[in-house]
C-alpha cells in the first residue's frame, strides 16, 4: 500500500516502512505479554466459548495464533537488505 503513495524522496518510503515494522516488532511481544497476563486473561473463564471449548482456552490459543501470524507477516517485511544497513537504523536502536 505504501508503494502506491507518492514518495517524494526515493528510499523514504522504504525507510518509513522499515521503521514501522521495527516498531511493530516491539509492539507485538509487549501487547501479547500484556494480554496473556492478569487483568486481561481474567476476563475469560471456563465457560464454553467456541464449539464447546472453554472460552479461556479459545482465548489463549487464539491469541497465540494471532501473535504467530502477525510475527510471520512482520518478519517478512523486516527481512530486507536495508534492515541490516546501519544508516537506516535508528541511532537509538536499543530497548530502554
Amino acid at each position, binding site marked *: 500500500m505504501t508503494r502506491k503513495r507518492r514518495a517524494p524522496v526515493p528510499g523514504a518510503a522504504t525507510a518509513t516502512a522499515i521503521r514501522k515494522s*521495527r516498531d511493530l*516488532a*516491539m509492539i*507485538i*511481544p*509487549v501487547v*501479547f*505479554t500484556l494480554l*496473556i*497476563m*492478569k487483568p486481561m*486473561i*481474567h476476563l*475469560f*473463564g*471456563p465457560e*464454553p466459548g467456541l*464449539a*464447546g*471449548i*472453554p472460552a*479461556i*482456552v479459545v482465548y*489463549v*490459543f487464539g491469541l*497465540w*495464533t494471532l*501473535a*504467530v*501470524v*502477525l*510475527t*510471520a507477516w512482520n*518478519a*517478512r517485511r*523486516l*527481512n530486507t537488505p536495508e534492515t541490516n544497513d*546501519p*544508516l537506516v*537504523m535508528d*541511532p537509538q*536502536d*536499543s*530497548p530502554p
Partner: protein
Amino acid sequence: MLSGNLVFAVSLGYVILLFLVAFWGDKKARTGSSALFQSPLIYTLSISVYCTSWTFYGAVGSAVRSGLEFATIYIGPTIVFIGFWYLLRKLVRIGRVHRITSIADLLSSRYGKGESLAVLVTLIAVIGTTPYIALQLKAVTNSFQVISGTVVSDLAHPVFGDPDYTTAFWIAFGMAIFTIVFGTRNIDANERHHGVVAAIALEALVKLFALLAVGLFVVFSLADGPGEVFSWAPPDFLKTEDVFGPRWVSLTFLAATAVICLPRQFQVTVVENSDERHLFTASWMFPLYLMLISLFVLPIAIAGLKFLPETANPDMFVLTLPMAMNQHTLALIAFLGGFSSATSMVIVACIALSTMVSNHIVMPLALRLPWIEMKASGDIRKLLLFSRRASICLVLLLGFIYFRLSAKSDALASIGLIAFLGVAQFLPSLIGGLYWRQASAKGAFAGLAAGFMLWLYTLFFPSFEGQFVMPLSVIENGPWGITFLQPQALFGLTDMDPLVHALFWSLSINTFLFVIVSVIFDPKPLERLQGALFVDVFRTPADNESRFIRRYAASSDLFVLAQRILGTNTAYRLFSDFAKKQGVSGHLPRADDEFIGHLERELAGSVGAATARAMISQVVKGETISLDELMKIVDETQQVIDYSRQLEVKSHQLQQTARQLRDANERLKQLDLQKDDFLSQVSHELRTPMTSIRSFAQILLETPDMTVEETQRFTGIILEESMRLTRLLDEILDLARLEGEQVPWVLQRVDPEETLERAVETCHGLASQAATEIRFGDRVGDIEVKAEADRLRQVYLNLITNAIKYNTSDTPVITIRTTLEDDRYCVYIQDNGEGIRADDRERIFKKFSRGWRESKDSRSGTGLGLAISWQIMQRLQGDLELLPQIPGDGACFRVTLPFDSIKTSKAAE
C-alpha cells in the same frame, strides 16, 4: 502390552536411523551440498530441543495438577521469539561476530575475557543441567518399562518400582557414543554440527508428530470433537481462578529466560546459527511449533482422567492412554516421541556443556600445568578433542549417577523448573552486558555468585527434601533453628510458593549486586572495549577492536601457536589467506594489530575468548589499549558524531554520483548534437560535388553540338568533382575509423625528422606549382620518437599542403623548424599568408570547418584534414595546436610528440 523385545527392536531401529541421518547430514555437509541443513526450517526444528521429555510427558501431568499452568512453559519462549528483533538478533549477531562458543564464553568475552567468570558460569550450568539429564534418563527408562510392561500390569501403579538401571546405563552409553561421534568432529564450536542438527531436526518432527497423533486420537476417535472432550473435564479442571497469580507470571518469565540462557538453547540458537536471517523464520515458526505441541495437552489430560484409573501417573498419560485403549502402534509412536525429546536434549546439552567444561575448566588448567608443554603441531587440538570427549562422558556419567542415587524419590519431577531458575541467574549479566556499557566483570561476578548461592540455598538443596546436603530440620526450621534464615521463607518472607520465593530472592539480589558493584567499580579498559563492541554490535564491527589494542608479535610465533590449536592445514590456510588479503607474498602475513585481532577471534572460536586471549598474550609483546581511542567509541556523543559523519559521507557520495550522472547526460546530449551536425554537414559537403557533376552531365546530355574543347572541359570537371567526392568519402571513413577505434595503436620507434623530410619532398611538386618556397629553420637532429610513420607523415603532409594551398601572400614562403621543449619534440610549420581569423581559430580542428577564406587552388579541401590530423596526434599521445597569431605573420601550427631518447645530435657534430 507390547513385548519388550519389540519395543527394544523398534527403539534400536530408531537409533540406527538417527545415526544414519546424522552420517548423511555430515556427509552432505562435507561434500558441500548442505543447503538443506542450512535452511531456516532445520534451524527452527533444532531450536525445539527446548521441548524435552519433561515437557513431552510432564506437560500433561502439569495440566492434570494445575490446569492451564503448563502453557507458561511455552508462552515464555513465544514472547522471546516474537520479540526476536530486540534480543535474539543481537545475541546471534554477537555470537557470529565474536565467534562465541557457549553462554559461558559470551559472558566471559563481554566482561574482559576473564577466566573466573567463565568458570563460575560453567559450574552453574553443569550443576543445573546434570539433574536435568538425569530426569531425561529417568523418563526414557520409565517409558520403556511402561510400554514393555515389565513393571506395571494394570497401569494403576503410581510408582514404577525399581527403575531398570541397566537400560538407563545403555541409553546413556548410546547417547555418549552418538554425541562423541557427531558432536566432536571438529573443535571449532562455530563450525556447525550438521549431523547432530539433522538428527535433532528429525527428532523434533517425531515428537511433534507423536503428540499430535495422540491428541487427534483423543479428540476425534475417543471423543466426537473438542467440545465433547472438554465436557468430560472435572469441575474446575482449568483452575482459572488461581492459576493466573504470581506463579503464572513467574513461570512465564522463567521459561522466557530459559530459552535464552539454557546452555543447550544457546548452543542451537546462537552457536549453531549459520545465517542470521534464519531468525526471521524461527521468530514465528518456533512459537507455532510450541503452540502445536501444547494444543492437545488439555484434551489428553482430560481423557486420561476419564479413562484411566485414579491412581495412574498423569506424567505418563501420553503413553498409557493409547495403551489402555489398545492402540499399540500409537503407544509406540508416543514412546518414540518421548524418546526423541529426551535424547535430543541430552545430546545437545552434552555438546554445550562439554564445550564449556573443556574450554573454561580443562584448558586453562592444562595450560598452567608445567608438564603439558607439548609443542607439536595440533597438540592443543588433540588435547581439546580429548577433553571434549571426556567431558561428554563425564556429564553423562554424572547424570547417570544422579539418576541412580535419586531415582526413587520424587525429587526429579521438579528439576525442570529448578534448572530453569539456575540458568536464569545468567540473565542480569547477559542483558546488562548487551545493553549497558558500564556493566563490569566485578558486578557480573558478584551478582552471579550471590544468585547462585541463593538458588542453591532456597531451591536446589531443599528440593532433595533432606536427602542431600541440607537436612530436613534446616529446611523446616532454618539453620540452627533460626527461622529468619529458613530456606523457603528467607528473611521472614512466608506464604509464598517456593519457586516464586526462590526466584524473587535469587534474581533480585543478583540484579541488585550486579548493578551496584558495576556502578561502584569502573570496568577495566578491556571490559570497556568489549562492552562497547557488544552493546554497539550493529554499528561497530569486531575488526574495530584492532583500532584500540596495540601489540606486537612475530608472525612465525603466531603461526606455531595457531597450528598447535587449529592443526597445520587450517592454520596454513588462515595465514596465507590473510597474507593474500594484505598483499604480502609468502604465507606469513604481517603481524599487525588487525591480524592479531583476527587470529584471536579465530582461536576463540575453538577454545573460547578467555583461553584464546591468554594464549595470544603469551606470544605478543607490549600490549597496550589505546585509551583515547577507546574513550572515543565509549563516548556516546562521539558515536552520534561518527554516525552523522557516516551520513555525510554517504550523502556526499550520492551528490557525486548525481553530478557524474548529470555530466554524463550533458556529454551524451552534446555528442548527439555533434552527430546531427556532422550528418547535415556531410550531406551538405556531398551535395556540392554531386550538384556540379549532375549539372555538367546534364549540359553534356542536352547539348549535342558541343565543341570538343568544351566537352573535354566539362568531363574534366566531372572527373575532378567525382575524385573530390571519393576523397571526401575516404576521409570521412578515415576519421570514423580514428574516432571509433578502441585499441591503442602499436607505436614503433620512428625518426620524425626523416619522416618530415620525406613529406616535404612529396610536396615539392605542389609547392613549385604554387611558386611557394619551403625553408627549413633550426633542426633537432638525430632523434627517435614512438609513433606510426605513415600516420605522422599524413599529418605533416596535411599541414604543409594547407600552408601551400591557402597561402595568399605574393611571395609565399613556408618555414619549418623543429625543437625539443620539456621532453617534447616539436615541429613548427609556419606560412606567411594572412593567417586564420580570430573567430575561426576555435573551430578549425572541427570537422568541415575550413579556417581559410580563400584558396589559390580551385579544388578546395574537404574540411576534414585538420580534424583527422588532430585525431591522429591524439592517438599518438602527442598534440596539434594552432599557435597564437602574431600580427604580420601567417598561421603557425605546432606538432608535438613525447620523445624517447636522443641519439647524438647532428647539430652538435
